[in-house]
């Protein structure tokens, strides 16, 4: 046997770290590819015994890249535990923070992480395919703009949430701090700039990707396509909502397969365990676990930007809606199964987030002082679901009558995509790695299959030297290192 193994071990974030193993058969073709997550921290266990209202200050440490998502998923779960609703003003403030977060997180990903593949080009030398290459292509001024808009959006979160890593303001029935008129006006300017900036990012996407047939062909190519179900939050009109709404899921043809209120998630989602990874693999309960397979009968679903757009009937804001229509017109209608379209969907969502910020801040009632409803009911059990930038995020707490946690269950955004990411990697690897030949370019092509999920690898820190760090070791069946490829 001449089995070969390729290990892609970037030792980088995926709800912790991630590692890819690719096995080659005796012809040197890819037999199997697996994404392993070699980390677990045990939040579900050590939540036990904590006062439930402290969870919004504990769970953000699951992920410092999207702490705002964990903060508000927990805050909403705590609302539910106490059966209390936030005041209208508090709800507006929460939504403002949340949209600012969505905006900065999404645009950062486009320019610094996913974008280089397109802006600089998938075939460009690795040395250029990074933030410096992006700067070279779009100009230093724009790179400065990206840094500035990120900082300004994050300053909104800093002001209202205390710390952007990690916010502290969520309390059952409201928020701890309100907004004054001076800051409303200041943040409104940031919001307006954000709309312009999101439109500008979409323009770059249009110029660089859509006007380039070669790129469009890559987006639509078979190696970057897996056929799955999709899940996301929708508002009462079935439009994309990041903060709240029913959870809806659609099948591989875009037909509604289910829709549920937050407390009912256990009727719809289950998590499969494999002995080779610390991460679990969620699937649709209705269909049952069928393994890592795509196609019409699959029980695998995807979450995050493209999944949200595939799940919804449209966007919640007018400018984003225009781009939504254009995307489906270009890519042949919903659902779109082309994984690289996540990048496009992400920018459309950034625009919705920015428009929503403007809408919220133009409403003068956001400065009302009424920011808390004090809970009056006995705490019991609650589920909070929110759309993290990386997808559906579920926090579920059960407490005693003092509100001390007895049980916690957390299904984190990237976990929903864990099976799909593995499948996407395998498909791309099978297409690009043939006859044992592995080149730097082929590796990037493989890597491009998982970067669209922004699987928390997408820590802003990739920004600096740029590319996803990779090293590939190819071993023969005796475990001897025969070839090493490196890039960065």
């Amino acid at each position, binding site marked *: 046997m001449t089995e070969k193994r390729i290990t892609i071990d970037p030792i980088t974030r995926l709800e912790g770290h991630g590692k890819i193993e690719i096995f080659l058969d005796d012809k040197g073709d890819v037999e199997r590819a697996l994404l392993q997550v070699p980390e677990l921290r045990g939040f579900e266990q050590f939540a036990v015994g904590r006062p439930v209202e402290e969870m919004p200050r504990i769970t953000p440490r699951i992920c410092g890249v999207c702490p705002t998502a964990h903060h508000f998923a927990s805050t909403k779960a705590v609302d539910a535990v106490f059966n209390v609703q936030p005041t209208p003003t508090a709800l507006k403030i929460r939504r403002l923070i949340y949209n600012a977060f969505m905006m900065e997180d999404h645009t950062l990903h486009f320019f610094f992480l996913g974008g280089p593949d397109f802006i600089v080009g998938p075939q460009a030398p690795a040395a250029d395919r990074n933030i410096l290459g992006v700067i070279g292509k779009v100009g230093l001024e724009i790179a400065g703009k990206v840094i500035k808009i990120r900082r300004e959006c994050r300053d909104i979160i800093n002001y209202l949430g205390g710390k952007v890593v*990690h916010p502290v303001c969520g309390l059952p029935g409201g928020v701890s701090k309100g907004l004054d008129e001076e800051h409303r006006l200041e943040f409104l300017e940031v919001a307006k700039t954000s709309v312009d900036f999101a439109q500008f990012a979409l323009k770059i996407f249009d110029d660089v990707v859509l006007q380039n047939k070669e790129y469009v062909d890559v987006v639509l190519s078979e190696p970057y396509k897996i056929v799955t179900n999709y899940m996301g939050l929708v508002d009462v009109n079935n439009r994309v909502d990041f903060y709240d709404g029913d959870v809806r899921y659609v099948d591989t043809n875009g037909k509604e397969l289910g829709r549920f209120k937050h407390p009912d998630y256990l009727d719809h989602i289950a998590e499969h*365990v494999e002995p080779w990874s610390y991460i679990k693999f969620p699937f649709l309960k209705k269909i049952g676990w069928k393994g890592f397979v795509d196609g019409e009968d699959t029980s695998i679903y995807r979450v995050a930007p493209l999944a949200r757009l595939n799940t919804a009937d449209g966007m919640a804001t007018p400018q984003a809606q225009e781009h939504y229509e254009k995307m489906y017109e270009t890519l042949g209608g919903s659902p779109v199964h082309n994984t690289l379209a996540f990048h496009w969907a992400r920018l459309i969502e950034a625009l919705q987030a920015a428009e929503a910020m403007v809408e919220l801040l133009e409403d003068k009632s956001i400065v009302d002082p009424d920011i808390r409803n004090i809970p009056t009911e006995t705490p019991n059990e609650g589920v909070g679901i929110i759309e993290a930038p990386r997808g559906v995020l579920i926090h579920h707490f059960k407490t005693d009558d003092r509100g001390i946690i007895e049980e916690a269950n957390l299904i984190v955004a990237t976990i929903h995509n864990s099976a799909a990411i593995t499948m996407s990697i395998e498909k791309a690897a099978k297409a690009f790695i043939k006859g044992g030949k592995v080149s730097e370019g082929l590796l990037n092509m493989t890597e491009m299959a998982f970067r669209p999920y922004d699987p928390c690898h997408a820590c802003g820190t990739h920004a600096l030297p740029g590319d996803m760090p990779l090293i590939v070791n190819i071993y023969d069946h005796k475990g001897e290192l025969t070839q090493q490829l490196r890039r960065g």
Partner: protein
Amino acid sequence: MNVQKPKVAFYWCASCGGCEEAVVDLAEDILKVVEAVDIVFWPVALDFKKKDVEAMEDSSIAVSFINGAVRLSEQREMVELLRKKSRLVFAFGACSHLGGIPGLANFWNKETIFNRAYHTTPSTDNPDGIVPQEEHTLDDGKILTLPKFFDTVYALDQVIDVDYYLPGCCPPKDLIVNAIMAILEGKLPPKGAVLSPNKSLCDDCKRNETKPEKLAITEVKRPWEVMLDPEKCFLAQGIICMGPATRTGCGERCIEANMPCRGCFGPTDQVYDQGAKFLSAFASILDTNSEKEIEKIVDTIIDPAGYFYRFSLPYSILRRRRMEAVK
């Protein structure tokens, strides 16, 4: 490349990535930092691997910034290696400084954590009782490995020698910049220093003037139970605030958002155990001398371990719950 530039490494252990975000949040300043140093290892950002570090000469890295607690075999191996290769090691952030929030897992052990994650969580569908294995052989003989998961979470200096500590969850921008400047200018304080002023948060807190000499409270309130006064000392409102037992330097970020301190900066130099310090400080300001009364009030604190040791359990005198006591 300028050979004079100090070589710097970054590594993360059991952490959330927030410390890495804190570095990126230097925003416009980050380019200056990058210019001044030569980053030789940063797994999240650079293509260097463990064996590249192994190949470096001992003590050839000027500074390693390590964030996250140590909870996996892989993390221990990596920090031991970095220690050998580095002249200075900085514990960056609350998790490496004190164990941090992942350290709350020391109330449990590997078995209870795995049991929850892979068996008893209500969404888990695991009829065959599968548990992730350190080594697993697939049907066709292929072997996959995972790092070992320890029963106990460790702060960094419980595993390797640490030279300096940057406190906070996450460390604030000004302290990071100050630390980097101190390194570049050779103005570091004596070894072992926590790089933030050595006084309590109350000393710097704007609300300090509303903090009474004696607290006339009869029970402790939880933040959701009352309308929080945005100007009054939290303790005076009957709300647990870790300020008296916590080092200052954070910029009172949580308090600015009208929420009490949870102690992420850890204690001052004079104190080893943050929880014990809080309890004694708290008891001393209660407006009663009756031990019984004090006990009664303290009993209204519903989760003392989770409040007082939120960020410092692995570092505390307790360190962890006795293994035999974990059910």
